[in-house]
């Protein structure tokens, strides 16, 4: 027996050194890869109090994961139970090396309470894992990655928990547990002991049983430890720092590339070496839960893009090329888009930048930072973009609108409305920035005219730029043409700074987002308001007089750049409710932060949609099926896309902008 204890001590020591050694080497390598990439990350550890709160709610509270109820609950059970057994496992390891070591000898009371809690918390892990197996074997949702990796992790975890109970069940036998009264603190372990009638074993038999459980437990933990860094379970290590470093504010700007930098050899994300450390941490943090894929309008309509696969494929590419990265041989790193790579042009250009993936991601992966930077590289460095975008880029460059209408006719939409130009009325309270769709598209013009009507009804002191107005650059920027976009932004910034408006009102979420979140970086940070917010403000100030409305049921379709990009989810709804439509308002299935994109964002408005089903048809089908006669939108592009989709289905539902609705229900 003494020889066995001595041998065990040596063997456990050796295994611990080997296990933790390999684990450390593998993690160090991951860390070195993270540090080897060239890109500049703007992640910073500011506002520590808020970040600690994030750790408490998102990690310890598991609030982010539980937004998907059942799997989230299962995860919570596994998370806490697994966490709870860890100190016990550490004790067992130390005890294996040094048999005299028992925490019970040091702090018996505390130890007893801990065992009581751990014993109870460990069991729900098995329930959670059972649910995980049920999902993979019975439910099999398409977005959920299943395979050896996933199954192995479930197996490892189950074995760790089951052996935890057996070890403890044996410990309740005095000949194994020694002087400490384990049975007093255990609930489930006692049950295990009774069910398997372990008390009836001979002393030698129970010792043998204990040792078998011990070794199984230890070897599984060490195996798991070695396995983690190479598996999707890397999220055990990377998710917490990634959540801690998450952008604390919902609105975000695109990364401003210094296009004036004469030493820059490349722009955007051309190969894995151009990633930044935060991107890499994002890749590490992904556990392939597939929630992003479930929400992605591109994936659900049969496009080759899935945010989950994008992250996964990029991670594999990073690992494939890590040897070159670690040696600093950046020149020989293969480009992201190359023959045989799952990352293709169609993957990049299928994205509508709707941000549903980032919104739903339980570990706060920033997918768009990757997509948009990769597009930037393709456009600026490779001149590789959908051919139909060429005309749009030319038009934006020459006429500052995507369709190429003469820019001096930009103010023609308001003919006959007696709208003051800001040159004539520089002190106006509000600069109404109309946008390209509002200025040139017939549907958009009707919206702009409705906005003007409402502003006049509320007696708002406003002016427009008219022919001086220019495109804000959003479409060019999201389509990867950073150079053109910055040129347009510069021009626009100079115009704005000339008038220094007190407040800018926009009729389009894309203009709104760009002015609000991106212009301050270019020297024009003005107070910006979208018309849904502004009309709400006017309504609350009782500056609008309402009349009997003719609307029956209506629903609000969330614009991505209003809702997910800027958190303006309640403002348009409240506006409709306060306008006497509270009883008419219903919600579609995919709504608010899970609202489905119309398909036009990220420059997609100006690209062909040849692969799979059209996204606006997908949305229109939902609308037609909901039998809701009126759809309120807050973006001219959504209005156009939904109208076309509904027409394609021969639906009778009518799409109005909220401004048009407010115009109709007020006098």
């Amino acid at each position, binding site marked *: 027996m003494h020889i066995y204890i001595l041998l065990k001590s040596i063997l456990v020591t050796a295994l611990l050194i080997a296990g933790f050694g390999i684990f450390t080497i593998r993690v160090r390598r991951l860390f070195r890869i993270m540090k080897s990439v060239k890109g500049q990350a703007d992640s910073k550890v500011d506002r520590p109090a808020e970040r600690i709160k994030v750790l408490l709610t998102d990690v310890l509270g598991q609030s982010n994961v539980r937004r998907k109820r059942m799997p989230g609950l299962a995860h919570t059970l596994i998370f806490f139970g697994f966490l709870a057994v860890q100190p016990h496992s550490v004790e067992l390891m130390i005890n294996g090396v040094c048999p005299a070591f028992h925490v019970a000898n040091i702090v018996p009371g505390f130890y007893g309470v801990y065992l009581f809690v751990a014993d109870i918390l460990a069991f729900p892990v098995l329930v959670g894992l059972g649910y995980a197996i049920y999902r993979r074997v019975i439910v099999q949702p398409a977005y959920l990655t299943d395979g050896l990796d996933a199954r192995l992790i479930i197996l490892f975890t189950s074995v760790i928990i089951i052996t935890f109970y057996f070890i403890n069940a044996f410990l309740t036998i005095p000949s194994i547990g020694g002087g400490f009264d384990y049975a007093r603190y255990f609930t489930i372990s006692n049950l295990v002991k009774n069910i398997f009638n372990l008390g009836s074993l001979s002393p030698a038999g129970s010792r043998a049983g204990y040792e078998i459980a011990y070794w199984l437990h230890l070897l599984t933990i060490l195996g798991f430890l070695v396995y983690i860094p190479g598996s999707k379970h890397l999220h055990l290590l990377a998710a917490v720092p990634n959540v801690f470093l998450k952008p604390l504010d919902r609105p975000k700007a695109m990364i401003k590339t210094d296009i004036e930098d004469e030493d820059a050899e490349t722009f955007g994300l051309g190969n894995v070496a151009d990633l930044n450390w935060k991107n890499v941490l994002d890749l590490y943090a992904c556990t392939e839960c597939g929630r992003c894929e479930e929400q992605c309008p591109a994936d659900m309509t049969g496009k080759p893009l899935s945010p989950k696969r994008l992250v996964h494929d990029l991670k594999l590419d990073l690992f494939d090329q890590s040897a070159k990265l670690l040696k600093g041989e950046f020149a020989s790193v293969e480009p992201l888009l190359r023959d045989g790579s799952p990352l293709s042009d169609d993957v990049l250009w299928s994205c509508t930048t709707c941000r549903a993936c980032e919104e739903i991601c339980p570990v706060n992966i920033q997918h768009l930072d990757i997509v948009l930077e990769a597009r930037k590289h393709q456009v600026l460095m490779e001149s590789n973009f959908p051919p139909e975008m060429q*005309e*749009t880029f030319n038009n934006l460059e020459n006429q500052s609108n*995507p369709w190429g209408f003469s820019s001096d006719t930009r103010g023609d939409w308001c003919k006959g409305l007696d709208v003051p130009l800001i040159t004539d009325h520089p002190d106006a309270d509000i600069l109404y920035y109309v946008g390209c769709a509002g200025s040139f598209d017939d549907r958009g013009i009707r919206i702009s005219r409705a906005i003007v009507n409402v502003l006049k009804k509320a007696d708002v002191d406003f002016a427009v730029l008219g022919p001086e107005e220019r495109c804000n650059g959003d479409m060019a920027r999201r389509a990867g043409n950073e150079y053109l976009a910055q040129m347009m932004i510069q021009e626009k910034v100079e115009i704005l700074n000339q008038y220094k408006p007190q407040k800018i009102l926009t009729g389009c979420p894309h203009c709104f987002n760009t002015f609000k979140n991106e212009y301050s970086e270019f020297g024009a940070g003005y107070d910006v308001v979208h018309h849904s917010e502004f009309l709400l403000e006017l309504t609350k100030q009782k500056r609008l007089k309402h009349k009997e409305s003719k609307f029956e049921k209506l629903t609000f379709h969330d614009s991505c750049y209003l809702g997910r990009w800027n958190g303006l989810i309640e403002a348009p709804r409240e506006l409709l409710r306060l306008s006497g439509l509270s009883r008419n308002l219903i919600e579609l299935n995919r709504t608010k932060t899970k609202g489905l994109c119309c398909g036009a964002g990220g420059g997609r408005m100006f690209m062909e949609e040849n692969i799979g089903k059209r996204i606006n048809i997908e949305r229109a089908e939902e609308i037609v099926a909901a039998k809701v006669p009126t759809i309120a939108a807050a973006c001219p592009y959504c209005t156009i896309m939904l109208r076309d989709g509904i027409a394609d289905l021969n639906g009778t539902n009518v799409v109005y902008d909220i401004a048009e609705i407010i115009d109709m229900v007020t006098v």
Partner: protein
Amino acid sequence: MGRTGILLETDNGEIKESNYGMITAARGAGDTEMYGFLIGGEAASCKEAVQKYGICRVVEITSDAGDLATRPEKQTDALIAAMKNYDIRFLVGLSSSRGRDLMARVAAKLDAPLAVDCIDLNLEDQIVTKSHFSGKTLARLKLCGDMLICGVRPNAVEPQEAPCEADAEVFAAQVKDDGRMVVTEAKGSAAGQVELTEANIIITGGRPIGSAENFSLLNECANLLGAAVGASRAAVDAGYAPHSMQVGQTGKTVSPKLYIACGLSGSVQHFAGMKTAKIIVAINTDKHAPIFGKSDYGILGDLFEIVPALTEALKDQTSQ
């Protein structure tokens, strides 16, 4: 000043209209001897058409190495051989898809400067004019070199006659086949169809056309008008027409003299592709359709009645 070679383009054996403006641009003050080169097309039959514009010799380039028609690399060698044979200093052609291809190849092989999409030429001073930023600015470029190759934008220069008597002859070029290119199949566009981007008249169908078969209504009318047939994005999306027929922001950009829009609402995406049309005629049943606000003539009515009536009227006219 040296001889000028004119790369003539033909369509079904006849000289294309757009050549004449190009010849006029190349002629300049008229103190250059102009040779017309034909690859495909007979010198004798084309002579009449081009001598009116001052071409004094029409050379039909043939090859002993088989058909040149589908072999741009052989055409290049044959053209260079002809240029050397006739001591040509300037080569001028159309900035068409064929011209851009062939002239770029010739320029590369001769290491000569190339300017395409010119809207004016001054060969004597070796200066060409190009339009930038959708015509907002004009750039005058001085080209340096012993030989110059220039492509002229179709329809950029108004043709002016300068009649002379031309000779016609055949030049058989010695062309080697290096075997680097093998033509497996040559597909022509359907006979009689006019290319959308080059068409003077376009008749376009929107979603109300209802089916791919119904496009025959438009085709019939188009044949009589010598027009090309286009489609709106909605019609293409509905599968009634191929994408190659799509006019609009993400399809083809066209600028015909006459544009007949049948059953089109006139969305901005479509209008962006045809806004430079000289005359727009709209046929629509919806009097509120935005297209009426953009068209020169509007016909309020069903395209299934109006288009056949138009076809009948055209038939009557041609039979008279």
